[in-house]
């Protein structure tokens, strides 16, 4: 059960990716996008894509959590057994 929940939890980012709405492709490549702040003649200004960075950062967070939990688990032999007051 524990492992099943772990697997489910780890697969969440994948699920999230699947569930992600399709990128608004036509608007993103439109030649003159209407700028949210109404500035005219915008050369660029809005990041397109960049999901790799998002996954890298979130992945670092998830890996860190798992890694630190594992390091605590590995060092557990020095700690009292669970349930000890």
């Amino acid at each position, binding site marked *: 059960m524990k492992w099943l929940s772990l697997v489910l939890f780890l697969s969440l980012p994948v699920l999230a990716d699947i569930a992600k709405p399709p990128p608004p492709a036509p608007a993103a490549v439109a030649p003159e996008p209407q700028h949210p702040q109404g500035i005219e003649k915008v050369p660029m200004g809005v990041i397109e894509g960049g999901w790799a*960075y998002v996954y890298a950062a*979130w992945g670092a967070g998830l890996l860190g959590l798992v890694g630190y939990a594992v390091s*605590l688990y590995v060092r557990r032999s020095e*700690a009292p057994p669970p349930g*000890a007051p």
Partner: protein
Amino acid sequence: MASWIPLAGLIVLVALVIAQLAVPSSRAWVWKVAAGLGTLELAALLYFGLVWAPPEAFMSDVGRILYVHVPHVWACLVAFTINVACAIAYLMKKSWRTDALAEASAEIGVYFGAIGVLMGSIWARPTWGVWWDWDPRLISTTVMLLAYVGYLAFRSFTEDPERRAAWSAAAAILGYVSLPIVWFSVRWWNSLHQVQSTGSTVDKPMRAVLYWGNVTFLTFLLAFIIKRYELARARQSSALELPPVQAPKTEVAV
């Protein structure tokens, strides 16, 4: 996500902390609840942060790093604050408990801080255009982490538990001086890093997700600190050759 949901999570978290501190019989299960709750909250954060939340107006999807970067640094600052509180408490009244908690919070603070800085660097590349820069905020944060790495190294290099406790408490208090510098660096200098966001500078749904992220990682902070604290206590009792299960009578006789 309605804005009261993070608040509810925070209240549950505070209740857990109170239970851990005040109700000895709950100590066997509080960390399990915190770990389980944290996992659930993280799953929700994955959905809210990566799918539900709107992209930022200019950063678009890259702005989603906000929901993990800021909570990590917050957790780091909270951990270091716990650390200095324990150090002051130890110097006022010697107790192995505060010493162990100081050790636990410093290590976890370094962990959260290092990950937070890493995330910030990843975020800086697409937004600022560089991975790293000579920036007061970045430098002062890194230096603060180094101070605590030094603190941890010092702890592991000192054998006498009593001296280690007193000396590392002094080192912790001196090291904490760098934390206000980190906090104020973006205000003192015209830094590349933006100043702290307030409620009014973040749109409502994004703010809710940000607070949710804070609650999530603070919950993990609680679970980690409890387990790391138990480890530190076990090391102490083996170093002092105290019976391992002797909870109430572990104050240092001075």
